[in-house]
């Protein structure tokens, strides 16, 4: 023991009451909630609703974007119409085809060619030209023999290569024009390359046959 008792406040002295202890934060929040419970609930509800609303907005079903147009080769048909003139020319073959875009956006024909060595090709109208959907465009094709040793005198399914362009793609596509075209081409090439060959009998391929309703570009 030290013999020293507790110090008592003397005269003129003042034992200051300790300052009120700071309320713990939890208690303060609880008190705040108690006082403002309605406001807190309203705010929480508004926040939750806003969050739900935002989620709904972000995940809302959207109208699908318009589908991309099909590639031009899937919408365009090239149809053999027949030879131009009753007989083949001495140096080549003139004929007409119809180019028709059946659906989708406008298609531009950028090139018409043929794959055979020994032949050259010109088209009228000269590419590039545009087609209007649903309207057949009549194209005059002239093939000239440049080397008889390299022409396909009897091709079964000769091609016409056409390069097409629309808003989706540019495509080089082969159009196999069928047996009538093959026969007419073969006959013409036989005539152009050999005096000994005569055209074989062929079906009635009058130039105007089947041209009703065609629009010349």
């Amino acid at each position, binding site marked *: 023991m030290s013999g020293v008792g507790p110090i008592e406040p003397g005269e003129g002295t003042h034992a200051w009451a300790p300052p009120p202890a700071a309320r713990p934060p939890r208690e303060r929040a609880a008190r705040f909630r108690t006082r403002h419970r309605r406001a807190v609930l309203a705010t929480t*509800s508004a926040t939750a609703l806003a969050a739900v609303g935002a989620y*709904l907005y972000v*995940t809302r079903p959207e109208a699908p974007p318009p589908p991309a147009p099909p590639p031009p080769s899937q919408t365009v048909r090239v149809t053999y119409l027949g030879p131009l003139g009753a007989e083949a020319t001495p140096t080549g073959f003139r004929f007409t085809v119809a180019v028709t875009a059946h659906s989708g956006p406008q298609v531009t024909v950028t090139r018409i060619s043929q794959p*055979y060595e020994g032949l050259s090709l010109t088209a009228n109208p000269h590419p590039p030209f545009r087609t209007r959907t649903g309207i057949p465009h009549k194209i005059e094709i002239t093939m000239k023999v440049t080397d008889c040793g390299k022409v396909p005198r009897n091709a*079964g399914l000769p091609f016409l290569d056409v390069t097409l362009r629309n808003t989706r793609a540019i495509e080089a596509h082969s159009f196999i024009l069928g047996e009538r075209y093959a026969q007419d081409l073969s006959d013409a090439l036989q005539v152009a390359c050999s005096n000994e060959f005569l055209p074989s009998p062929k079906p009635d391929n009058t130039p105007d046959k089947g041209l009703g309703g065609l629009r010349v570009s």
Partner: protein
Amino acid sequence: MRQRSLIAITAALAAGALTLTACGSRDGDGGSDSSGGGTTVVIGVDAPLTGDLSALGLGIKNSVDLAVKTANKEKFVEGVTFKIEALDDQAQPSSGQQNATKLVANKDVLGVVGPLNSNIAESMQKVFDDANLVEVSPANTNPALTQGPDWQTKKERPYKSYFRTATTDAIQGPFAAQYVYNDAKKKKVFVIDDKKTYGAGLAATFSAEFKKLGGQVVGTEHIDPETKDFSAVATKVKSSGADVVYYGGEYPQAGPLSKQIKAAGANIPLVGGDGIYSADFIKLAGATATGDLATSVGAPVEELPSAKEFVANYKAEGYKEAYEAYGGYSYDSAWAIIEAVKKVVDDNNGELPEDARAKVTEAMQGVSFDGVTGKVSFDEFGDATNKQLTVYSVENGAWKPAKSGTYEG
């Protein structure tokens, strides 16, 4: 109490909103395979589901399965639930014929998709035709199946119940010849086939056109499809001086043949038809397959906008096997049957008539719809009116489209 009410209202609002959100997000999901009603219509499938050609066969089966599920989900034919019965022909004509008999015996079968192989179709056609049961092949390319044995001189349809969505070899062979001669600039070909209906027929139509164009056939050989040793043929190819090989047959033989030709020292491309257009060809042929070519029916499915949904749905269904060369055509074949059934049901006050098979066969001739592979309809022979072909080349271990063509005759 009022505060509790407020909490309850808020919770209810949030729950309701979340429920609505969940409902909205289901749009476009696969959904359940719900039943369409009380009548069951079975679509049969015949294809090689086991063996060397099973990659193509399983692609056919899965694609038909997808069409059936789609029709049921959409309740496309009110009151009708479609089911699939798939049988394995093991690429054997005798098995194909047995399968045809089995499918005919099931009265619920109103249409069949298949087969893969033309020689198997030959064994099935009469069985189906006698029972008025319609058959739509996604893959047969032999012209005689629709245009008769004398198709080159006189086209005559042998069976009114047979249809196909694939283009024929009357176009495929010449198309390949034109590409090889004009675009690939190959002038000397060695022609090999497996002696089967498909392979020999395709090799013949290729050779005829190649010669007409001025090309030279410097050698021909037949192989035995039961063997995988083609070293003797490869040596002949090497010594022939050919600058290209054309093979009429299928990928189980074409892959090793390509590999062995290159190993013999002839570094020239092998070209084939739709029978080699498979990822398995590249696996079998190995790294030296680069530059090999194949023609196949139709435009590349992946490039067709109409095929996007098919490709996505096929993936979503989680099929283990790829849809391969004929997936889109198989889906369209099955859908053609579904369309024909719908027409028959609609014309009969919403019910199947007694002579449903005959009526479905009759309706098939007039079917027309926008399918996975484009417009689907049939000409007077039962052939697809959509006659497109594509040349593919092997690049970096995969088939890449090189050129497409459309027959407009």
